[in-house]
């Protein structure tokens, strides 16, 4: 049985997803046992990556690079670099429904490139008998801050699932899940009305949440099981990611009741979904240097 991790990385004008993927691959190689990495990308992104880093180094950290044609899309997303700066940019990473066919592995863990892996807990995915694993639960890095948007996809709608980390084996059920995600993506406007949510940008999380709900027989059932981590830990776009020392990550977290005021926080050996992509871009070189 082949095992590995699948990333999607398509650069836009401001965010170098290729570099973030390389940084995360360094972390994965350092911490995980099942550490074969495949990246699905486009010609522009991979050329830019090879221009910035030595080809041998990139190839030692990323096992397979799959180049596909980047689709033109009007999918715009707001990217924050703390509260004080934001960019509206195209979000190209919307080809996740192809994972079942793209993945060269029998057992695949799909990860967002910005979900930084600092321990080996995800190695347990491959030991479990559950063929599809995806998490509902998440926790903000600032313990007293809560976002209702990560609980349900709309105020009166269904449960929210994180497409940030999805494990699957190549079974009929998994294929059905990805086909359904594709169907939801193709008919996103309809599903927005049906499921009562208003999000201008296509979100993989929403497409997976809806697909899971559909395959559960329009109920809260157990078609999917949670990953072997109790929750996904995440920061916010309003937070700043300021320093890296090995697997110690330092953040400035915006206080929920006092915008513009920050609390310093350090994580250690903790997987963390960094939402401020600009800050992650700034520190990617340091992550690569400290973890390669």
């Amino acid at each position, binding site marked *: 049985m082949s095992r590995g991790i699948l990333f999607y990385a398509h650069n836009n004008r401001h965010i170098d997803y290729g570099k973030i993927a390389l940084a995360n691959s360094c972390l994965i190689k350092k911490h995980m046992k099942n550490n074969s990495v495949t990246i699905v990308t486009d010609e522009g992104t991979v050329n830019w990556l090879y221009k910035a880093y030595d080809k041998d180094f990139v190839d030692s950290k990323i096992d397979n690079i799959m180049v596909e044609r980047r689709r033109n899309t009007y999918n715009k997303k707001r990217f924050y670099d703390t509260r004080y700066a934001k960019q509206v940019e195209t979000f190209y990473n919307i080809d996740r429904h192809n994972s079942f066919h793209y993945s060269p592995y029998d057992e695949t863990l799909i990860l967002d490139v910005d979900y930084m892996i600092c321990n080996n807990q995800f190695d347990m995915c491959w030991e479990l008998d559950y063929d599809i694993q995806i998490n509902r639960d998440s926790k903000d890095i600032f313990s007293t801050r809560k976002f209702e948007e990560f609980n349900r996809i709309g105020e009166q709608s269904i449960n929210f699932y994180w497409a940030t980390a999805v494990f699957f084996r190549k079974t009929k059920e998994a294929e059905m899940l990805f086909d359904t995600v594709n169907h939801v993506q193709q008919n996103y406007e309809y599903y927005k009305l049906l499921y009562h949510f208003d999000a201008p940008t296509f979100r993989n999380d929403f497409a997976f949440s809806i697909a899971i709900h559909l395959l559960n027989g329009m109920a809260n059932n157990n078609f999917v099981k949670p990953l072997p981590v109790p929750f996904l830990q995440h920061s916010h776009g309003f937070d700043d990611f300021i320093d890296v020392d090995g697997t110690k990550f*330092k953040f400035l977290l915006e206080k929920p009741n006092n915008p513009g005021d920050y609390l310093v926080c350090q994580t250690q050996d903790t997987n963390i979904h960094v939402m401020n992509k600009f800050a992650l871009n700034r520190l990617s070189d340091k992550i690569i240097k400290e973890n390669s």
Partner: protein
Amino acid sequence: MTDQRLEKALEFANYRSTLANQKEKLKDRCEAQLNYAYNGGIFHINETLISFVDSFHRQGKQSMVMLDSNKTPVDIENLEDFYNQITTRWFESVNEYHRQHTDLANKRKVHKLVD
């Protein structure tokens, strides 16, 4: 309250918030380490699981079926091995948590909490 005293109070409040958040990070890390995969199932190691397994282990049972965290039945073929593994993991994680928690409690400045 004078400006200076207020400033000190706010500084202390900031220290307490940072300390509370850092303690929460340690707890989260410990919680995550207590998830344990065994024979295809996932178990969250806690006092209840350890006592439950120990009670049957003491009675001389060598194997049993248990419900994992997802309520899926999992065959524990070697109860002694399972017991040893969960207790080892428990002690490793909780002792480390205790060490770091004590370490944190002795730090009195914000910058030291995140050193």
